[in-house]
């Protein structure tokens, strides 16, 4: 071997050795940082989870509760339920960001931010457990630590923890620190406290049949007095004008595959009172917002000839339809992403009073709930024959007479409140002895495929069957099958 050759090899080898020096730099991701501040993650978690709830209220919540009706693909209405993986995935996905926010807040002793993270997580998990029953909770969102197959926890245990977490969050939110990136409540710790406490009241009401001390705990929260007390405290995401931060349904078009119309059931109830919210929830068939407005309602249920699928389109704040009246022409904002409203809280209080949990005047809260909903929807009572919201209450026949009135008016007010309308219908159905008969304004959907029985839960998504099989099987065995007719703890 010649000297020349050896030296060449030496040169190559040294070039290569030098060449590798920057490999760690070269393989450092220039597109995505490995650390970010928590405000950007909080904004992500809020947008992702609230968008999920808007979409799911449109596809599931409103339809399962018969506030609206699907006109083309009627599986939800007809109780021909498949798994609804988008609820599961959409909500669980948001939790990674929430946990990162919490971790950073703890590291920087920012108790307010930590409190926000705890409230967000509790709300997200509350939706998930209400929908599915037992779910991965205590071991969830721990992939970074190597837990890829989290176990399913009992709904009872989850509820206990959610309630104590929300209690803890309310304390944290009174502590030191500040909130940033909060596109939901404008970095206002006091509003988050109110949300935390109101959410506790919601959960206690939801679990009222299964939680023996629900009443006393509810009263305790109520007596603290720090809950949502006006529409200014509403937990809603105000969307922007620009894509992709518009109200998620705006780009949809009529005739879309998930075509949704106003329901006959809701139309009947609201027509009975000439409810001015009608012109907000539904778009007049004749695009006329005067007293000449005409509305129609589609039947919830199967897509066959017996069930009319002709109903008014959803209101101007939810959809744009070319060449028809827009929300801005009526001076209305586009719809918000609703997490929780003052109206709901008033109805919670009315029902708590009716249950004897709190010593309050039932009608006062009932009436405040209706008024709050009317104000929130910026109704125009005049075309409906009323001079004001008070006039409506006094003269429409809506005035309080029995507990089911609370259910009825709460049901109307829960329009586009995520999955909450379905969760409440389920509770009332359970309180009525697993029967429609106790709910005067509702009946089984037209030609449904579940023998007129209201489904009690969502099916676990198929992804869990394949990716978390052992834990999934254990949970299903405990339930007695991944069946949507199996009751969950809150309605047992």
């Amino acid at each position, binding site marked *: 071997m010649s000297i020349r050759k050896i030296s060449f090899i030496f040169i190559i080898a040294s070039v290569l050795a030098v060449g590798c020096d920057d490999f760690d730099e070269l393989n450092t991701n220039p597109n995505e940082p490995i650390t970010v501040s928590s405000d950007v993650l909080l904004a992500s978690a809020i947008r992702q989870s609230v968008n999920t709830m808007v979409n799911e209220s449109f596809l599931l919540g409103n339809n399962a509760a018969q506030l609206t009706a699907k006109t083309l693909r009627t599986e939800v209405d007809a109780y021909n339920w498949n798994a609804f993986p*988008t609820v599961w995935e959409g909500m669980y996905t948001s939790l990674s960001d929430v946990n990162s926010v919490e971790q950073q807040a703890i590291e920087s002793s920012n108790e307010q931010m930590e409190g926000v993270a705890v409230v967000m997580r509790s709300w997200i998990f509350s939706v998930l457990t209400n929908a599915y029953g037992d779910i991965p909770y205590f071991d969830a969102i721990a992939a970074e630590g190597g837990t890829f197959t989290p176990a399913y926890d009992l709904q009872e245990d989850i509820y206990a923890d959610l309630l104590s977490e929300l209690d803890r969050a309310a304390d944290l939110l009174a502590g030191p620190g500040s909130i940033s990136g909060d596109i939901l409540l404008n970095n206002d710790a006091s509003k988050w406290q109110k949300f935390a406490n109101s959410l506790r009241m919601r959960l206690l009401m939801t679990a009222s049949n299964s939680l023996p001390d629900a009443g006393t705990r509810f009263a305790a929260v109520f007596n603290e007095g720090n809950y949502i007390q006006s529409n200014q405290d509403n937990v809603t995401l105000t969307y922007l004008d620009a894509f992709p931060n518009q109200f998620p349904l705006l780009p949809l078009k009529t005739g879309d595959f998930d075509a949704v119309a106003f329901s006959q059931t809701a139309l009947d109830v609201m027509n009975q009172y000439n409810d001015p919210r009608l012109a907000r929830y539904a778009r007049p068939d004749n695009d006329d917002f005067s007293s000449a407005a005409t509305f129609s309602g589609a039947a919830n249920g199967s897509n066959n000839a017996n069930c009319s699928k002709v109903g008014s389109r959803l209101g101007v704040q939810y959809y744009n339809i070319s060449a028809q009246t827009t929300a801005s022409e009526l001076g209305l904002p586009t719809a918000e992403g609703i997490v929780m409203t003052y109206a709901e809280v008033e109805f919670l209080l009315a029902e708590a009073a009716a249950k004897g949990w709190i010593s309050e005047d039932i009608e006062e809260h009932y009436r405040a709930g209706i008024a709050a909903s009317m104000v929130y929807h910026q109704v125009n009572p005049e075309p409906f024959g009323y001079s004001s919201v008070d006039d409506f209450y006094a003269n429409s026949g809506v005035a309080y007479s029995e507990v089911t009135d609370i259910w009825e008016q709460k049901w109307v007010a829960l329009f586009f409140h995520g999955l909450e309308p379905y969760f409440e219908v389920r509770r009332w159905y359970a309180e009525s002895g697993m029967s429609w008969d106790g709910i005067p304004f509702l009946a089984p959907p037209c030609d449904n495929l579940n023998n007129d029985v209201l489904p009690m839960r969502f099916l676990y998504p198929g992804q869990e069957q394949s990716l978390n099989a052992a834990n999934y099987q254990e949970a299903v065995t405990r339930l007695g099958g991944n069946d949507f007719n199996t009751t969950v703890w809150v309605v047992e």
Partner: protein
Amino acid sequence: MAFLALTAVAMQAQDRTLTGTVYDQDGLSVIGANVYVKGNPSKGVATDLDGKFELTLSENENTIIVSYVGYATKRVKVDGQSNVEITLSEDVELSEVVVTALGVERDEKALGYAVQTLGADDIAKVKPTNVTNALAGKAAGVFVTGSGNGPTASANINIRGAASLLGNNQPLFVVNGMPITNDLYSFDDGLNGSTTIDFGNAAQIVNPDDIASVNILKGPAASALYGARAADGVILIETKTGKNAEGWGVSINSTTTAETILKLPNYQNEFGFGGGGKYSYVDGTNYIGPKESYEAYGENWGPRMNGQLIKQFNSDGEPAPFTPAPDNIRNFFRTGVTSINNISINNSTDNSDFRLSYTNTGNRGIVPNTGLERNTFQTSIGQRLFDDKLDIRLNGMYVRSSSGNVPNAGYDESSSVMYGWLWYPRQVEINDLRDYWEPGQEGVQQRYVEDLWVNNPWFVANENTNSFQSNRLIGNVRMKYDFNKHFSARFRFGADVVDDQRQFRRAPSTKATPGENGSYREDEISFQETNAELLLSYKTDFQDNSAFDFEMSVGGNLMQQRANFLVANNPELKFAGDSESIYTLTNTASGVLVESQKTGQAINSLFGVATLSYRNFLYLDATVRQDWSSTLVDPAAGLEGSDYSFLYPSVSMSAILSDALQIPTSSPISFLKLKGAYAEVGNGAPPYSFNTTFTPQAAFGGQSVFATNRTLADPNLTNERTRALEFGFDVRFFGDRLRVDATYYDMLSFDQIINLPVAATSGADFITTNGGEISNRGLELLVTGRPVETSDFAWDVTLNFGRNRAVVESLPDVISENSGRYSIVPDLFPGDEGGADLEFVAEEGELLGQLYGLGFQRVPSGPFAGQIIHENGLPLLTQDKVSAGSYQPDFRAGIMNTFTWKNLSVGVLFDGSFGGKMYSRTHALMATGGAITNEDDPNLDLLTTEGRTVYSVDYDAAGDPVYTLEQAGGVVGPGVKNIGTPENPEYVPNDVEVEPGGAGYTGYFYNYYGNGFNRDNIEAATYDATWVKLREVSVTYNLPGSLTDRMGLGRASVSLVGRNLLLFTDVPSIDPETFSIRNGLFVPGFESTQLPSTRSFGVSLSVGF
């Protein structure tokens, strides 16, 4: 060992002297031809300036072998002769020299692994616009699948199956020794969901007229010197030079071909637009409507088209005859034209040469307003200096391609005309829609049959364009210096630079765009790869007549890649109108979304290759390559903490038994070679696989938003590896008139890099990790023969056969313990929310690429075993997903016949794929929409025209439709129904009549293809994908020399050429030679609303002077 013993024949007894002269075909003496004694290669001489030689033979030596590069090696029995005259003939049949890894030219017989060479004529005679397609059917075991998706359509090329679960398993393309990119650069996301606009595989731009040869390194043993990039084989392309020219030369090639549709679905022409047998037009916006107009129903389940009077979209509110327009869809398409014109000049002197070539490719697509323009400049300059010791060559290729519109093929409402045909009325003449703007609303509002769903196809073609301009520069320089007859050094530097800009317009009033106000998007793709390589070689002196020859090279390579992708999307235009200027990023109603992605990676390598040969009949090759890969460096752990270096060895052996055993020339066997090889290669990781990151999202007003990346990294991520064994033989008979070359291989790819899905409840969706094994086993067979040869006629046949079985041997534990299957593509057709998605799956123990979806519930046993179970007349689907089989064909085969008679030659290539499965979403959709007859569907013996309920229509005084039942319908699905209980079923033939189709996604066809709108049944529309194509035909007439001389030409030929002239298949509605593209991945076995494939035919002229 036996060979050695046999060749150790004693040399003894009487020597004698043999003299001779070697001539070529033209009678000119051949200088420097190698003449040696058979069985004793060391005893040889070279012919002198007069072609003469002299050899001393011993008594038992009575055969000599004469060889010369470019000529067939000849054996001559000399017996008692003392003077012989030998004429060599040009070796046109089997090229002896092939280009192997690192550009090293080798005698084919010396190779222990499979390399197949295609010459210039094989590639350029019948030219496709995508050069990859020119390989189809011509190389054993090389599976090329094209598609009809426009002039830029990609071709999927797989050699020896699929080594990897991640990525496209495409071979590495190497041009003039330097790798070039063959990526798809396809971004599905962000453009209305399910778009597939095929801008093509990047290597397609190599110009066929400039190609001198294509050498296909099929297996790891051949490609091992490319290390971490070699797992899927290598395509080595050498471009033409001026080297062998004599003085000045000019060559002109011109080809013009016309393209017409090869296959369209069988449309029905009995029933028109509408639903439930009803139709009437009101204002185009009622899906069903209170008057049951079904005017925007978008399907052909309407009334009978018998001339009855019905209000229609273009009848001004008056009833007009409702009659079929049978060729409406066919008439939309036009005859495509492709014109390829090439001129090249070359020159060579004693120590220099150059070639300069210019090619213009112009295409007018079959879809109106689509086409392609491509200009290619190619140059090669060679210079030899210092007594030929220094050899310098410069190769450059510049390609500028552009198109005003690349057609979209796919299930995309906004810009695919193919989507539109699914719901296109059978009664509407296509020319009635040619004026696609509403009068007075040009640029603002399109005009169509209905106003909810589908866009006017002319509007789509003319306004919703997908344009691009791309510049590609591929250049390299090579310097080789021979220090002496033993040592040489070679340095090469190559660069591949891509700059591609794409613009997507969606005009105002395009349905399925935000606000229907139009949108505009720009993509910018830039890519750059450079390679610097140094190689030092040593070889023994071949002239010294020793039994052993030895060659060795060592070298190194530095590879760097950089890529930038920028996507800027203006989802809603602010101002609409007829002006071009509305399509800008700044004319925005709601802001512009920008995504950008930068990647960089590098591989540094050291390699060595050694070849030992014994008496020119036994060859042993060994190679080794060490790669250092940047993508395997964990930045957090640093270089020391990372495992980023890999060694890839290979060894191969070739034994020419016919020489070793001295098979007598009287034997029918003229050549016999055995070969065998073992190799290891790799497949790198994607960049930035380490560490959890946060993904930037669109800001919420002034608030920045980042989301936790849902893909976690395994800190121990390592390279994919493939181990391969191959062996085979090459046997030739009757003086090489018949040749059979067979190779069997067995490869195992392990440590698969996989984006392992994990439960979303864990807080991640994927972990990038290693795990799983894929084996590829297969057989490649090449048979060539010349069955007939007379003085002026020859018939040559080449048969290429390839069979590959890619089997998923194992998957990571977490999958094995759960479902045992991994979705390579978890949702083939996103956008159809709900229901079950169709999946492309790797399943343990099964062939790779299973087509998964729901299936039919079938009777498990008894007299009705296997029949479909019906309930209420509708077929029942399974709860769980099932596989309809794998896309993998049993084998691919191509057979080329060439007939040469005097100056006329005829080439006919058939190419076929046998077995495997293909899901046709086009067929499923067309059948559910009632547009086709369904008579060609082998799976379902029901016509969509049978059993329809149909109404006739009249109008009342108010002008509202009044329907009268014309015929009550119903079809009975083939299969059984259960008259027992679910627990104790009792099956009888199904006799329940249901509507075949109709309102609200009900009816037999909707349910048959899967749950109404979802079409999630994989079984219904999956077919045996076998197809055979008459791939290429050429008839070439070479003008005789007497004529060309008179014309002042060196040579001239005229050819009639054709591609894809005939298609034979049982797959209904579509040409099954196709694939889907999802997120930049080829997905074989799935077809969705693809453009019809085309046949092309035309004329080609070639002259040289």
